[in-house]
């Protein structure tokens, strides 16, 4: 692996194909198209085999050649390889033959898939010589940048909408990061950050470091394939904010085929949104290849991006693979969270409720066939969005420390259990 580039060749415009050096830059000067990392797949093919992968530690870095960090990663070396849970009880409830949950609610260290993208972005930032890192965030990214920057000794500035869930705010502050609350939507936070990134020259993980950052999401797809026993699932259901994760998991499947780890296969990518912020799913359902921006109003704040940067590309992937999209109301999101918890013992954040809710709809409508297999991508932990479920999951019933009071209570609920 060369010191400066690793297996990367250049940054390449997704629209016009112009190439740029592997620096901290994210848009094409000619048409504003997003830049993506181009790899030397021939070299990767020679280095990365199933055997090589299986011999490495169980982290996302076992696929290092396909991640845009030139040398050994320096930030987030333990991230990834989260459980792929066989979800038989939920499968039965939803009416599908085989269902698995990719559980990034327990990703290390900040309990969301963002640790994947951040470990790549910060490792690359260190390689490029940055000392200050930053992000515009709906919460999970802020947590991950704050934690991983702290562990790496980097100075961190995180910018979030000021009305975020308390759990996500405390989860950024505790690491000593500079947390700036912006009175506005994520879209407005991001607009400000684009201006700050230009002026201050920091490594903004999802602005000027975005080509590297976004690639980290592929590791979720690599792991799904490996954990399924080197098989690409027929259906993958993914929550969409900017739409990036859906496109990157799809790219992961393609890359495994491209470098010869898998034979040709067919799969469908499905996207999930909240009805209160559904520019991509609305476009998909209307058969459009462009979306109309919206002003978000949903409890799924981690998905509340009204002008999704990768919306166009997510629509393209769903169309090409024959996938579908749908959206769910706040009540359906809460129901999704509840049934995932009750059936599988997994407490997901609101985005997870969106994914489960949309999977339920797509299976019920036959868009995902009952006799098929699917993977649900759960991207964050429910402990971070407690507010969304507070008052919707019943309440504790307090009694004195008395057997008589307990049995009185049990007699109300399940009299057959009371022993005389």
């Amino acid at each position: 692996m060369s010191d400066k580039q690793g297996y990367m060749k250049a940054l390449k415009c997704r629209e016009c194909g112009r190439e740029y050096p592997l620096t901290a830059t994210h848009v094409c000067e000619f048409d504003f198209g997003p830049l993506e990392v181009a790899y030397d797949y021939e070299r990767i093919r020679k280095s990365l085999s199933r055997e090589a992968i299986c011999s490495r530690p169980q982290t996302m870095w076992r696929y290092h050649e396909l991640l845009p960090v030139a040398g050994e990663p320096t930030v987030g070396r333990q991230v990834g390889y989260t459980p792929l849970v066989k979800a038989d009880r939920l499968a039965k409830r939803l009416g599908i033959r085989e269902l698995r949950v990719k559980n990034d609610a327990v990703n290390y260290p900040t309990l969301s898939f963002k640790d994947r993208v951040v470990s790549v972005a910060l490792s690359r930032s260190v390689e490029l010589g940055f000392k200050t890192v930053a992000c515009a965030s709906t919460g999970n990214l802020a947590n991950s940048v704050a934690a991983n920057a702290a562990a790496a000794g980097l100075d961190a500035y995180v910018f979030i909408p000021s009305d975020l869930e308390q759990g996500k705010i405390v989860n950024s502050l505790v690491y000593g990061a500079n947390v700036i609350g912006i009175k506005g939507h994520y879209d407005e936070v991001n607009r400000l950050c684009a201006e700050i990134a230009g002026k201050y020259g920091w490594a903004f993980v999802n602005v000027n470091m975005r080509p590297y950052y976004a690639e980290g999401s592929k590791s979720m797809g690599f792991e799904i394939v490996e954990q399924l026993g080197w098989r690409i699932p027929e259906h993958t259901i993914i929550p969409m904010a900017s739409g990036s994760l859906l496109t990157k998991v799809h790219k992961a499947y393609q890359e495994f085929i491209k470098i010869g780890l898998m034979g040709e296969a067919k799969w469908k990518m499905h996207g999930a949104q909240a009805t209160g912020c559904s520019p991509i799913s609305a476009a998909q359902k209307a058969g459009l290849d462009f979306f109309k921006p919206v002003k978000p109003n949903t409890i799924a704040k981690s998905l509340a991006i009204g002008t999704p940067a990768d919306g166009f590309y997510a629509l393209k992937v769903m169309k090409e693979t024959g996938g579908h999209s749908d959206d769910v109301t706040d009540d359906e999101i809460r129901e999704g969270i509840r049934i995932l918890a009750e059936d599988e013992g997994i407490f997901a954040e609101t985005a997870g409720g969106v994914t489960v809710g949309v999977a339920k709809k797509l299976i019920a409508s036959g868009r995902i066939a009952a006799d098929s297999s699917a993977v649900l991508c759960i991207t964050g932990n429910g402990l971070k969005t407690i507010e969304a479920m507070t008052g919707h999951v019943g309440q504790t019933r307090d009694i004195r420390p008395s057997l008589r009071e307990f049995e009185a209570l049990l007699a109300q609920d399940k009299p057959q259990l009371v022993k005389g």
Partner: protein
Amino acid sequence: MIQISIPPTLRRFCGDQENVAVAPGTVASAIEQLHDRFNGIRDRLLDPQGNVRGSVLVFVNQEDIRFLQNQQTPLSPGDVVSIIPAFAGG
């Protein structure tokens, strides 16, 4: 006058200026005025059909022009136009 905030990516095509002043009118006329002064800018912002590229966001006084009247959005003295790349997730 109208102030146009130039994104870092485009500054080297705009004489390294962070802000450029143009006469009132509409967003379309502001882009034309920018193009008159810095040849080639229009094609970076607009697609061959003349629409603002999907990867470009234009704001007038912090509001996305797609919520206003797109390129026909009127611009009055004191208005601020910001041009920035589309947002990534967070």
